[in-house]
């Protein structure tokens, strides 16, 4: 590539680094953006895309590195300043207020006034219509945002960005909630914006659309800069290779467990606009991995099976018995356990003790006419603290004070207490340190040896590949592939997870 010159790039980010406690989120990232260019950022979950864009938006502060905007070095300290500099970010979750009109949302907090106190509605609507026309949106500016479709709300966000006279618009996964035709409309708008010399940073998991819309693509992996390539000179395979090509250390202590009878059979499980026709079997002693990108519907399927959000149709059989009521009270009775992804919000009662948390599933079995057998309670808690090596001063300790890894072990321990036949683990190693991760992997091995059927969801491909006996890949609510451990590699999985064939 040619040497860069200051006037050629509207934005340059050089050697930008960011560290969170215990994690190097970004390590010397380089990223630049030309005027009127669409530049995509791709990478696996956790590669650092969101961190980078949050630094640009002023939501995070970079630790080191230089950001140059139109040839001048800038320090972005808060979101307001980013907007003033002409950088506008459209997040996946829109920042719109549903019960206000399109116009009020576009000019939120800066509506034209008359007599200094009252909003000048005539002017407000007139100016809003102007911006709506610019992006070809044929809605009345008085329409309430709550009456708009997701795609239309996104267009309002774009209009809002333009109203700030944004020179750079960042779109974080803008297509994830759009239908095919809505996506085409969005791409049309993006192309028009390009012609108006607006630069766009585009983030998406779907490689094909990245190739379709962008001029250049920058790949990040584990917080590191991999490369920047021209869309014309590359293909989906090459991109996927760059996304996953990382070295594997001897980190996964996988041991084969004997595969037994079928413990769980799922037939044609469907929930509208979440997942469709999900069918699979899980055996005793098997670790069944579910690979896929965020939003592929893996967690939703598991929540459907466990009975949190009942599916619309389909059948679930546990040990040959059909689950009649889709309720978690029922599935727990049938010895199924579920460790949710967000352990702080759903997995644990942080303000209660280690003992209380471990025993919460066990209380129906350790009481005498309702009175808790406190000795059993203490014994069970101690047992699991010992066998899972939960590091806590004593069982009275409040769970909030423990580390993430120890908290996760408690979230698992409470299910082990019921003697589960099936255990669903939704991203069990998320946000815990490397040592604790390894311990969780060994624990999964041991549980499989005890003939428990285990379903493992994980966003980390190496983890899924190395811990699972069998891997199912999901994309957009469907199962798109199945691999045995020996046949699986990151590239094959990523292709099925990210590419629309």
């Amino acid at each position, binding site marked *: 590539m040619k040497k860069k010159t200051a006037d050629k790039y509207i934005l340059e980010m050089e050697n930008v680094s960011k560290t969170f406690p215990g994690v190097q989120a970004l390590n010397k990232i380089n990223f630049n953006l030309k005027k009127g260019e669409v530049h995509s950022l791709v990478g696996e979950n956790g590669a650092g895309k969101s961190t980078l864009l949050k630094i640009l938006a002023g939501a995070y502060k970079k630790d080191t590195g230089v950001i140059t905007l139109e040839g001048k070095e800038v320090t972005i300290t808060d979101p307001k300043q980013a907007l003033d500099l002409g950088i506008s970010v459209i997040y996946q979750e829109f920042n719109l207020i549903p019960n206000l009109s399109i116009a009020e949302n576009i000019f939120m907090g800066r509506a034209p006034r008359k007599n200094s106190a009252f909003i000048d509605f005539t002017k407000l609507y007139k100016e809003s219509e102007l911006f709506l026309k610019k992006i070809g949106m044929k809605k009345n500016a008085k329409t309430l945002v709550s009456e708009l479709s997701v795609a239309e709300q996104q267009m309002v966000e774009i209009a809002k960005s333009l109203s700030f006279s944004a020179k750079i618009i960042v779109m974080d996964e803008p297509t994830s909630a759009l239908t095919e035709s809505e996506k085409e409309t969005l791409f049309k708008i993006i192309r028009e914006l390009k012609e108006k010399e607006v630069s766009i940073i585009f983030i998406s998991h779907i490689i094909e659309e990245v190739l379709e819309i962008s001029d250049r693509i920058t790949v990040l992996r584990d917080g590191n800069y991999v490369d920047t390539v021209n869309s014309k000179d590359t293909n989906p395979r090459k991109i996927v290779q760059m996304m996953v090509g990382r070295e594997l250390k001897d980190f996964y202590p996988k041991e084969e467990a004997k595969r037994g009878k079928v413990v769980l059979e799922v037939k044609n499980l469907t929930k509208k606009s979440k997942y469709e026709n999900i069918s699979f079997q899980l055996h005793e002693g098997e670790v069944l991995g579910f690979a896929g990108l965020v939003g592929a519907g893996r967690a939703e399927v598991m929540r459907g099976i466990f009975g949190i959000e009942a599916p619309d149709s389909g059948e679930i059989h546990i040990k040959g018995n059909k689950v009649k009521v889709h309720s978690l009270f029922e599935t727990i009775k049938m010895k199924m356990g579920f460790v949710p992804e967000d352990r702080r919000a759903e997995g644990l009662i942080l*303000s*209660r003790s280690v003992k*209380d948390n471990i025993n919460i599933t066990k*209380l129906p079995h350790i009481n005498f006419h309702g009175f*808790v057998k406190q000795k059993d309670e203490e014994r069970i808690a101690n047992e699991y603290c010992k066998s899972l090596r939960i590091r806590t001063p004593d069982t009275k300790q409040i769970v909030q004070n423990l580390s993430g890894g120890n908290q996760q072990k408690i979230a698992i321990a409470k299910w082990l207490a019921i003697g589960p036949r099936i255990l669903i683990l939704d991203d069990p190693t998320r946000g815990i340190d490397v040592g604790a991760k390894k311990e969780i992997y060994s624990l999964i091995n041991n549980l499989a040896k005890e003939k428990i059927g285990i379903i493992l969801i994980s966003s980390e491909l190496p983890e899924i590949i190395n811990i699972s006996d069998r891997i199912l890949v999901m994309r957009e609510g469907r199962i798109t592939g199945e691999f045995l451990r020996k046949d699986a590699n990151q590239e094959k999985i990523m292709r099925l997870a990210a590419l629309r064939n």
Partner: protein
Amino acid sequence: MDFKDILKSTEFGIFVAFLALCAILSFATPNFLSIYNISTVMKQVSFIAIMSVGMTMVILTAGIDLSVGAVLGLVNVLAALFINKFGLAPGIGAALLCGAFLGFANGITIVKWDLPPFIVTLGMMYIARGLAMVITKGWPITGLPASFCCLAEGRLIGIPIPVIIMIIIYILGYLFLSRTIWGRYIYASGGNEKATWLSGVNVNKIKILVYTITGFLSGLAGIMLASRLSQGSPITGTGYELSVIGAVVIGGTDLMGGKGSVLGSLIGALIMGVLDNGLVLLGVSAFWQQVILGVVIIVAVAGGSMRRKLFMKGEK
């Protein structure tokens, strides 16, 4: 629980405050420490304190019950009505059931329609108070048998019967919350409702249970007041909901749920009662008494949260 845990507990902090209050009052007024005065205070406190047991459970689940005063009033009227009609024991039994039912109605509405407890119990407050007025047309029901009226005025081994009932309710409440699985579930669902539900606990049943218990105890207090005043009056217990919530909050129970105990609420109720009594003895006007009570509620809660922060710092 070792000695250090006791020193650190919220209840201990409030208890020290209570002792200090008593010490000041016994120096300031000669009559405060007399047996007669103490027994009067205890008797007055008992009604609020009994309801506070239920309110503690409700607040532990991160709920609130604004209807306790009105439920007390309605059951107070119903008790008088039933006793006059069906006799002593059946009348008391039926009135207690009515109290429990009103609480159950609160719980089931909150759970089934997924409404904020504040709204549902506010509605119930008006409904119960209104029904009491409808039934009595605004007039007290009198003519209660003497055998009923001596219940609240009687004594057992020198202790007023309302105080004995209060002590029994507190022992039961304490055992229920600290020793039974339902107690564990109450604390758990207040700490994190979603995680508790995802652990297979029927959180809805727990919520219905705590509102039912609160309704039952409000009814019990209503019957005791009917006995004490030998009448059923539709305005009985007006404003009690605030005293009850005040007692629970002074007692250190967290309005966000999950933290607190009945022991704290008992001390909270005692602080309110003693303060009330002490200020009367000191000759402070009734208007100023309210001002002081308001200040005490705020200071007590602020003190509690400061203590917690202090101890947290000490640990890490």
